[in-house]
């Protein structure tokens, strides 16, 4: 059985953990309420700036001393921004766990946030954003999410150039001060650890944090639409996204099975029809993308201009065909694939600490691996078919980047 741990500090900060017997590492994710949707209007991209600025000195350490401290412990770390969170992740040899938690507590609670360093972080964020123009494949998906999700949930984590240009150190510092809100933070840990010791340490470092004021979001729906951005590249990069219920709606496993039949592997419908039978693309694939209250199935296909229209047509046809259900054989393959991913994920501390943090945020609890396995095994062509009949894919939002526009 999965060994799950749970503890809540008095101030509301939640710790969730999953102990893993056969690893020597530990990994933690610290989810903070600095996601792109929650930033003040006019500050799009501030979280990307903070992701860098927070690491430019904290507590008694300046920028160089902080990076040296992380490096000397061999801590692998990265910071990501999605719609809801600015997330700090660290993975390390289990013996260095306490030192790592202390360093990350410094980063979040006592960052130096020096104005001259802010300028450098802001410059880097602008450069990264400009770099997206040289990565049409990455750019088309970010534009797609923005076009698809109700505002502000689609706001790009990388930001918008004009807002980044106008962002001040004072605004950045104000946003940074909101991050350590215990009522909206989640600390997840997986691998080899002593949960009591972790709880004591987190309590010592974060126990005094108080709740910050929050304004609820009022999302503005976006109409389904198509936008084309001309460029002189070799391919047309096609992104499309269509509606499906979010994970909290209770149909997660039916959705995963359907998306798996559509695009889970090389025998999936998209790969077979678009690439194998017609040679239209090298890269084509769809995935389930879920936030707490909104979700979609997003799809990417990249192809040369003359094949772009046919690629879209064949791709969308596969989405629409799903309303007729899935075959027994397809479902069996989807189930084995999903279970196999699940078990392989259970071997990696980084994958598990990300997984349990996501579960807790989206569902309010962590699903034991056994529960997920049983739910996958319980799927039938009837349950998946019923779900797809109730949620047929009828409209979509599309974005293309490339030398040729298509008809949608």
């Amino acid at each position: 059985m999965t060994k799950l741990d749970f503890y809540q500090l008095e101030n509301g900060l939640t710790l969730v953990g999953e102990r893993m017997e056969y690893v020597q590492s530990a990994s933690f994710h610290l989810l903070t309420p600095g996601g792109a949707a929650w930033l003040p209007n006019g500050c799009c991209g501030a979280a990307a700036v903070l992701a860098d600025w927070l690491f430019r000195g904290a507590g008694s350490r300046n920028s160089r001393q902080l990076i040296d401290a992380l490096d000397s412990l061999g801590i692998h770390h990265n910071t990501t921004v999605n719609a809801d969170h600015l997330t700090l992740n660290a993975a390390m040899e289990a013996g260095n766990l306490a030192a790592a938690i202390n360093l990350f507590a410094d980063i979040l609670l006592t960052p130096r946030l020096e104005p001259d360093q802010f300028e450098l972080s802001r410059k880097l964020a602008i450069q990264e954003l400009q770099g997206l123009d040289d990565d049409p494949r990455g750019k088309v998906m970010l534009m797609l999410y923005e076009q698809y999700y109700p505002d502000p949930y689609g706001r790009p984590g990388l930001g918008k150039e004009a807002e980044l240009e106008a962002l001040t150190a004072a605004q950045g510092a104000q946003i940074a001060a909101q991050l350590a809100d215990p009522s909206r933070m989640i600390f997840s840990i997986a691998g080899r650890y002593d949960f009591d010791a972790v709880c004591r340490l987190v309590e010592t470092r974060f126990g005094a944090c108080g709740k910050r004021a929050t304004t609820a979001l009022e999302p503005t729906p976006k109409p389904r639409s198509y936008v084309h951005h001309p460029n002189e590249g070799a391919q047309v990069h096609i992104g499309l996204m269509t509606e499906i219920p979010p994970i909290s709606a209770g149909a997660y496993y039916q959705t995963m099975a359907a998306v798996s039949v559509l695009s889970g592997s090389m025998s999936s419908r998209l790969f077979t029809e678009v690439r194998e039978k017609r040679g239209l693309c090298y890269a084509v694939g769809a995935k389930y993308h879920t936030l707490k209250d909104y979700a979609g199935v997003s799809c990417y296909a990249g192809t040369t201009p003359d094949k772009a229209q046919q690629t879209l047509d064949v791709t969308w046809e596969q989405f629409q065909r799903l309303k007729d259900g899935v075959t027994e054989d397809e479902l069996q393959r989807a189930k084995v694939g999903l279970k196999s991913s699940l078990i392989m994920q259970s071997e990696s501390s980084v994958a598990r600490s990300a997984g349990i943090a996501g579960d807790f945020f989206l569902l309010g609890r962590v699903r034991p691996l056994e529960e997920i396995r049983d739910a996958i095994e319980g799927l039938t062509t009837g349950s998946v078919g019923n779900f797809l009949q109730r949620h047929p894919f009828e409209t979509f939002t599309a974005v293309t980047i490339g030398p040729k526009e298509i008809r949608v």
Partner: protein
Amino acid sequence: MEFKHRQLDNGLTIVGEINGDAQSAAVGFFVRTGSRDETPQISGVSHFLEHMLFKGTETLSPLEVNEAFDRLGAKFNAFTSEENTVYYAAVLPEYLEAVADLWAQLMRPTLRQDDFDMEKQVILEEIAMYLDMPDFLVFDRGRELFFEGHPCGNSVLGTVDSITGLTAEQMRAYFNKRYAPNNMTLACCGNFDFDRLCQLVQRQCGAWTRQETSRLTPPCCGAIQKVYEQKTGLNRRHLAMYSDSVSMQDDRWYAAKLLSVILGDHSGSRYFWSLVDPAIADTAFMELAAMDATGAFCSYVCCDPENAAQVEDILNTLFATVASNGIEPAELEAARNKVLSSVALKSEQPMGRLINLGFNWVYRQEYFAVEQDIARLRAVTLEDVHSVLKAFNPADYTLYSLGPSR
């Protein structure tokens, strides 16, 4: 962990690292062939052939191949480099033999003409995809410039012309020459039964015939040249730099690896503090690309076009300073700790171990357990790193720089 190895009479080698506690197992065929083994007429054939192996055998159609992998819940793929073509899959332990059996069948493909024609379209799409990825393009072109005339400079993808002109007959001839059992290694990691795997491989592959295979390994010190080009539609300047380094067979590999981390890790390195921290470039890293009997340090920098000259000046100063003052003990320790924890994290999954296990055998006919890898990393001294620095001065580099047209 237990290591076992066996060789069939026809030369096919099987290496296994058994871990009875693992939740999964991973298996891969490592074929010692890649773009460096191609002539200009068949440029790109190794990579195209890798795609064609998924197209099946006399008894398996392409769709049946894909379905067979998916029925096993396999996480599978393949890749082609300058000198290796690797086919791998990770599965739950109960499916390991079935997936190994499937790969063994696929290693004797039919190479049907109609599949060849269809897949050619996919390869041409892949070439077009990379044309829209300047970070990939600069590495490809930089390598070609650095290895000037040496087979390691050959393009893995080939060109639109070479792929368009390639025939199925040429591919079959190449296959017959290169996919000989004595030019292949089967590696397996995780929770599996080695003897049963060997029986299966003997049954499936025992009749394959040994061939005379060879590879040209002319000496290469690398050219030192700088080429600047422009491309319409780009926003940033992308720089790739190549300089001479150790080969895969060289015992100085560990010291060279640590030197590349000290100089060019994504964070906390010399590149980081002189280029990324001051926001002169948004990305800068160096990697060690050790190969068969040769090798290179390769670096990538992405910056504002107007910062490109400054980036070069900074790097030239950085290399000169390192050459004259050496590196600090603390830098070596930090790099060592970072690499050690990468090794530990990657080794948690059999799939993470597989490539290491396979390549150690392909290049050195040696097995290194994780503990031995760790011990060798721990044994590297400052003198070792300085001696690599002296033998392979990164200041002597080839640069390929691609930026927006004015």
